[in-house]
């Protein structure tokens, strides 16, 4: 078990280099390699090797490499060439970028409208269930367990645009439809978001339920002493108590939806008429359709920078309210 990983040469991890310098700086006593081994330094290093090798190769190195690659052209055949900010300007000049940004924002907005308030309402109602709460939460969580690819492919069947499609049959019962679902540029994105919301809501509900059990019952007692009814208790006690977690789920949802890939890729592959091309799909196409790794990393770095700025501003702005 261990040997498979240890077979990597031990000089790979970048964090290995500063070890000796830090060590000698921290220990006043002079140390030789022999005392280091005697003191367990070697066995500690061997035990730490899986972490250092795996993170070094597959996390730290690629992150550094991303910044380097964004200022290079790389075609894997000839040596990479430094091109300055050319990749960034080329991406910014891409006529598709505006569409992708708009679509991603639209996806994020729809996901907020469909998927942000609903889990909260469900969780608050569910927290008041007295018997069979476990059944409620298991039912709510079930869609999360379905593998995402299966969920998308199954919903693709549901979205069949013929009058005999699953959803069109259902809306037909109340005299609506048939709707074009994925076939129409203005319907495609909401259809994608509907599936994504179905697939993700259970996780958020469970988070809120856990947070709701953390609300001290004394607060409700106190509110009742002050004469608060049910609605005022929800508004003035429950929601303020959940504020912190609500802020976090909001920004996490935005960060998640900004990187949405599976739904647009599998449902529509960006169509119809680029109406579902997202930034992540553009990055994928840059890299794995056109082999332009420089542009792909440039765009992903720009997306990451925007997300970083957004979350910093967000946490600064909300830190004063969430306490």
């Amino acid at each position, binding site marked *: 078990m261990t040997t498979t990983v240890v077979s990597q*040469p031990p000089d790979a991890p970048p964090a290995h280099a500063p070890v000796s310098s830090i060590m000698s700086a921290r220990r006043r006593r002079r140390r030789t390699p022999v005392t280091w081994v005697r003191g367990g330094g070697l066995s500690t290093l061997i035990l730490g090797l899986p972490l250092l090798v*795996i993170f070094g190769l597959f996390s730290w190195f690629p992150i550094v*490499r991303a910044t380097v690659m964004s200022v290079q052209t790389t075609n894997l055949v000839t040596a990479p060439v430094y091109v300055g900010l050319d990749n960034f300007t080329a991406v910014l000049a891409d006529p598709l970028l505006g569409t992708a940004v708009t679509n991603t924002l639209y996806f994020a907005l729809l996901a907020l409208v469909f998927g942000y308030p609903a889990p909260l309402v469900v969780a608050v109602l569910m927290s008041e269930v007295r018997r069979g709460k476990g059944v409620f939460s298991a039912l709510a969580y079930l869609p999360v367990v379905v593998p995402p*690819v299966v969920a998308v492919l199954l919903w693709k*069947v549901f979205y069949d645009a013929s009058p005999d499609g699953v959803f069109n049959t259902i809306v037909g019962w109340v005299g609506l439809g048939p709707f074009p679902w994925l076939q129409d540029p203005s319907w495609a994105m909401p259809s994608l978001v509907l599936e994504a919301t179905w697939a993700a809501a259970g996780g958020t509900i469970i988070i809120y339920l856990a947070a709701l059990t953390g609300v001290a019952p004394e607060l409700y007692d106190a509110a009742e002493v002050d004469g608060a009814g049910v609605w005022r208790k929800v508004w003035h006690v429950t929601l303020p108590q959940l504020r912190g977690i609500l802020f976090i789920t909001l920004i996490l949802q935005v960060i998640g939806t900004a990187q949405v890939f599976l739904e647009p890729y599998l449902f529509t592959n960006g169509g119809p008429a680029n109406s579902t091309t997202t930034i992540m799909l553009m990055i994928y196409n840059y890299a794995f359709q056109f082999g332009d790794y420089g542009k*792909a990393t440039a765009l992903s770095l720009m997306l990451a920078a925007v997300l970083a700025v957004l979350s910093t501003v967000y946490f600064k702005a909300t830190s004063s309210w969430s306490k």
Partner: protein
Amino acid sequence: MTDHVSSPVAPTGARPRKARKAGSAAADRGILSPSDWRRRGVGSWLRLSHVLLFAGLVVGGLGPILWLAKSAVTPTQDTLRTPMAIFPNGVDWANLATAWTRFEIDLYFYNTIVLALGSWLIQVLVAATGGYVLSVLRPAWGRVATALVLSTLFIPAVVLLVPLYLTVLDVPVVHVSLINSWWGVWLPAGASAFNVILVKRFFDNLPREIFEAARVDGAGPFRVAWSIVMPMSRPILGVVSVFAVIAAWKDFLWPLLVLRDPAKQPLSVRLPALANYVELDVFLAALAISTALPIVIFLVFQRMFLSGAGLGGAVKG
């Protein structure tokens, strides 16, 4: 307010009773107090909303999965013409067998399991040894390593995709390509900062005296790891294991990029391709087969998923 007058009124013997009541009330009550429940308007409104909520959850949560289970054993023409009818022309069990043998779902199922087990082993190995070193052994370089591991939590996955792909294409130092190799999926799965932090936190909360005692008794770092830390960390490694397996089962984009050879691809990568050339009923049978195991795992480990330990899973997704 008037409801509350009743409890402070009884003066004699109130102490023990009140304490007991407060204890059970704290566990029992949520937003509504027991008296709220007794008020006719509130109580019946809430009961009605619970019935509606339950119906909604059954339709929304269970409905699509039941439909999939039904359609997996329904002939294609029935599913196309009357998708909501329940077995209008009988059950077609052969779909499952056809999907399993003729369209090689057995092979892709096996591949998925191999990927999940390998990723699980690597993740547990990295998280257990890493958490142990960073939390218990605390070498001088531990702080730097912890900071570096933590910092990767803040890097969105999108940044890693392309450079990680190029890394796997030509691994530095050893210069081998992991494309079309299980290792290309297994090894990067181990670089999960979430796992390491989770296990480290768990070890941080174990009493240090135990390790000190073992060391005084002459146990070296390996012995302490194997005989003391591993047995004690079984619950946290259980959490890591379940989420590792589930995450590997869900993974799509990475295996799609790394495993180009269809004979090595897992279900998640093969299913979209199958959709193009397999008849609908057999395809739905394949989807149902792919969903069965995760649902069984969920039902077995329900408490672990629903207790909020899955917070990280939600954050990662």
